[in-house]
């Protein structure tokens, strides 16, 4: 065969090779695109199926743990608050019984009476107290009236109620027709102060302790 014919044959092969390569290359590209598109679709379905279920699972499992954990912390705080309250109450009981030498309960009782009398602001007041305090008040009635008169700069009559209340200590004071009543019992004062401290304990004490962790 002549060189010329060989050259033609070579050219035919070359053209065919180029065409074949292009056909196969294009097919591979298209195949890749088909698979990629399928993967995108599958991923979309997968994400759609899992995302909401993961959110639900998280809410259920982690949410539950958060709730239980918080409840443990709240319970611990409540226990400490209860301990403080009970200790405060026990201390008050000792003071009211005259068993705490740091406090003069007779003077405290007078101060509670004085505060109530000022708030009621009537010439005649009636005082309720527990049995022990009533006895003390009855004995010192005239003395307390005089002190109050000096304090208020006007006359005042104190009568002790026949009713005996079951107070830890302190007084309940009212006017004759009971339109004005002032509760100055130790329990109610403790409850009031304690409510204030409950907030302080949460904001300062517990936060300080937890921030030190």
């Amino acid at each position, binding site marked *: *065969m*002549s060189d010329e*014919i060989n050259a*033609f*044959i070579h050219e*035919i092969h070359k053209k*065919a090779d180029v*065409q*074949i390569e292009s*056909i*196969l290359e*294009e*097919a*591979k590209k*298209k*195949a*890749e695109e*088909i*698979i990629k598109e*399928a*993967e995108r*679709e*599958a991923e979309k*379905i*997968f994400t759609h*199926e*899992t995302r909401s*279920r*993961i959110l639900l*699972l998280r809410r259920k499992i*982690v949410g*539950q*743990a*958060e709730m239980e*954990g*918080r409840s*443990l*912390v709240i*319970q*611990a705080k409540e*226990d400490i608050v209860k301990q*403080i309250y009970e200790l*405060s109450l026990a*201390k*008050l009981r000792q*003071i009211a019984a005259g068993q705490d030498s740091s*406090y003069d309960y007779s003077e*405290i009782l007078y*101060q509670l009476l004085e*505060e109530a009398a000022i708030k009621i602001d009537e010439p005649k007041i009636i005082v309720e107290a527990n049995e022990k305090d009533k006895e003390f008040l009855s004995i010192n009635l005239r003395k307390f009236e005089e002190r109050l008169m000096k304090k208020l700069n006007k006359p005042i009559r104190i009568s002790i109620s026949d009713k005996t209340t079951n107070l830890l200590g302190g007084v309940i004071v009212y006017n004759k027709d009971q339109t004005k009543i002032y509760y100055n019992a*130790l329990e109610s*004062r*403790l409850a009031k*102060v304690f409510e*204030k*401290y409950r907030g302080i304990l949460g904001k300062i*004490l517990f936060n300080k*302790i*937890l921030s030190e*962790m």
Partner: protein
Amino acid sequence: MSISVLVEEELKAIKRIEEAKRKAARIIEEAKKKAEEIKDKNKIMSRANEYLQQKEIELRKEAEEIKQEYVKQAEKIRSIPPEKIEEIADKIIKEVIGIER
């Protein structure tokens, strides 16, 4: 003689190209089949379930860690020394009584 050789070579080339086209069609057909498999809802759901099971294990671990953190906080709160409780109770008493010691 030389023209017949060229025609023969040309025919061979055409055959090869036809064969390549058939191969290309097979490649695309296989890709389509594979794509169907990839998009098979049952398979996706099965994969999703496996993934969710794994995720649940991770979430349970995370939940346990969170809870332990709270347990530590609760223990820390309970470890407030009695002297501190006494000190607070004394402050409360002073305020209840309304007079200083």
